[in-house]
């Protein structure tokens, strides 16, 4: 039997907030309902469920809802489902659904990422039990004993090295956060996270978290669920939206040990993406780059070949190139820095909105047809090239 192409056909998102009282399972169902309505599909037509990373004991706030939970409460007759941390970054859940679609295993798959990290901080006993351990095992044993507890401390060392080797400045890096805040203000779902645009002065005088990363270089814990429906090319007559084709996918991990890698996985992943398509970086109309920390979009810009390695800081100098009306509009929904730590899925969600022309109030001009969405970028990364044919 012939394989088919994979398309994104439905988008859904719950309310996005900080310490939302609504249970994360219900937030997820909110997002599923919106995505089904959007696609014109019913639950009975869904036969696959994919998430990242699935249930994690002790870190419930990080991943409070499993694919099993959703299959159970929604009565989904699933033919393939998956929730796993050991994949190349968050968007791998969408890539896995696309692979299942291409193989004919499923026709319409719900892909979701639910986070409850702000709510979890308010109720640590229920959601954050893993944080209380004073004995460390696995990869964190090589960092936590030195109080390098956060990925901020790990990413900061690569950002500092980039500045040292290539001359990137804090003023340049700050454009990532400034652009994110400007775009977030045009996105109703980001209003709980960003209420005013960041200025360069405010950025430069913000308190340092882990040099050179300041407060505004780090995304914020958020409560939300984001859903993307992936459908088979031979099932598109069942959906009512403009389908967006997954034109290419790439992911990589060199070593999981953050401190042993020379370069972030965004470089390998970015190079691989272009090997799998006839499109080139020059064809791209908008980029949605994972920005858990402001340095990561720099590595994606360089890794995907929008500029040479080491030139990312100079590429975004002044911020006009990556602005909504610039030559390469970046993170038009606000990214994670401006719209909250949706943890990877916000990027695919926004890329599809832009390609459909439904990014109300923040739509990229000129009828965009090609977008890149990425996730991760540290030791592991995943990227999707999305096209409206």
């Amino acid at each position, binding site marked *: 039997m012939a394989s088919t192409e994979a398309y994104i056909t439905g988008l859904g998102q719950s309310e996005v907030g900080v310490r939302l009282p609504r249970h994360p399972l219900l937030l997820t169902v909110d997002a599923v309902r919106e995505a089904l309505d959007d696609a014109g599909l019913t639950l009975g037509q869904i036969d696959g469920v994919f998430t990242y990373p699935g249930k994690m004991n002790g870190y419930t706030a990080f991943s409070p809802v499993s694919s099993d939970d959703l299959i159970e409460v929604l009565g989904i007759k699933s033919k393939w489902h998956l929730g796993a941390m050991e994949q190349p970054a968050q968007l791998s859940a969408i890539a896995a659904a696309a692979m299942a679609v291409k193989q004919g295993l499923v026709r319409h798959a719900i892909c979701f990422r639910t986070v409850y990290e702000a709510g979890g901080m308010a109720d640590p006993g229920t959601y954050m039990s893993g944080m209380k351990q004073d*004995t460390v095992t696995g990869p964190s044993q090589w960092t936590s004993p030195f109080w390098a507890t956060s990925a901020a401390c790990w990413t900061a060392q690569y950002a500092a090295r980039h500045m040292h080797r290539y001359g990137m400045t804090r003023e340049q890096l700050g454009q990532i956060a400034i652009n994110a805040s400007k775009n977030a203000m045009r996105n109703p779902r980001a209003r709980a996270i960003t209420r005013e645009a960041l200025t360069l002065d405010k950025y430069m005088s913000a308190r340092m978290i882990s040099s050179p990363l300041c407060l505004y270089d780090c995304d914020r814990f958020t409560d939300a669920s984001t859903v993307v429906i992936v459908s088979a090319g031979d099932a598109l007559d069942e959906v009512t939206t403009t389908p967006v084709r997954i034109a290419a996918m790439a992911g990589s991990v060199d070593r999981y040990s953050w401190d042993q890698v020379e370069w972030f996985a965004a470089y390998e992943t970015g190079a691989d993406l272009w090997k799998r398509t006839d499109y080139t970086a020059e064809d791209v109309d908008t980029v949605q780059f994972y920005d858990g920390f402001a340095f990561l979009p720099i590595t994606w810009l360089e890794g995907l070949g929008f500029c040479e390695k080491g030139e990312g800081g100079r590429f975004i100098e002044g911020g006009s190139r990556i602005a909504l009306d610039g030559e390469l509009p970046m993170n038009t929904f606000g990214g994670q820095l401006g719209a909250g730590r949706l943890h990877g899925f916000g990027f695919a969600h926004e890329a599809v909105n832009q390609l459909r022309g439904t990014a109300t109030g923040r739509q990229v001009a000129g009828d965009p047809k090609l977008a890149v969405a990425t996730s991760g970028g540290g030791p592991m990364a995943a990227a999707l090239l999305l096209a409206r044919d």
Partner: protein
Amino acid sequence: MNPPRPRPKLDQENTAFWTGGREGRLNIVKCGDCGEFTHPPRLLCRHCQSENVAPHAVAGTGVIDSFTVNHQPWARDLEVPYVIARVKLDGAPGVYLTTNIVHCPVEAVDFEDKVRVVFEEQDGIFYPLFERIA
């Protein structure tokens, strides 16, 4: 007064690393067949997959490949700022250690600084920290 450092759970793979400081040794797993180093420590060589591996005391010196001055107290009562660095070890090609640079002001730390290990003991774990070589 800083809180106790998070404590690694000792096992077959990591004990030589976390307790070597008792004898003043910074132990990194080395392969008896190909001579390459494997860190984090594993029970086989990550270069040739040989099981003929053993902890090997390296010189305990290196250079700062990169560093960050951390200002965020990630634990209650943790004194800030402090320096987290990625140290490229001498004599163990390809091996980096995440560590703290101690015994100097945070402003004094820079890229390519030469450093040497000093161990800080806490309940039988010997944490390898580094100080600048004057």
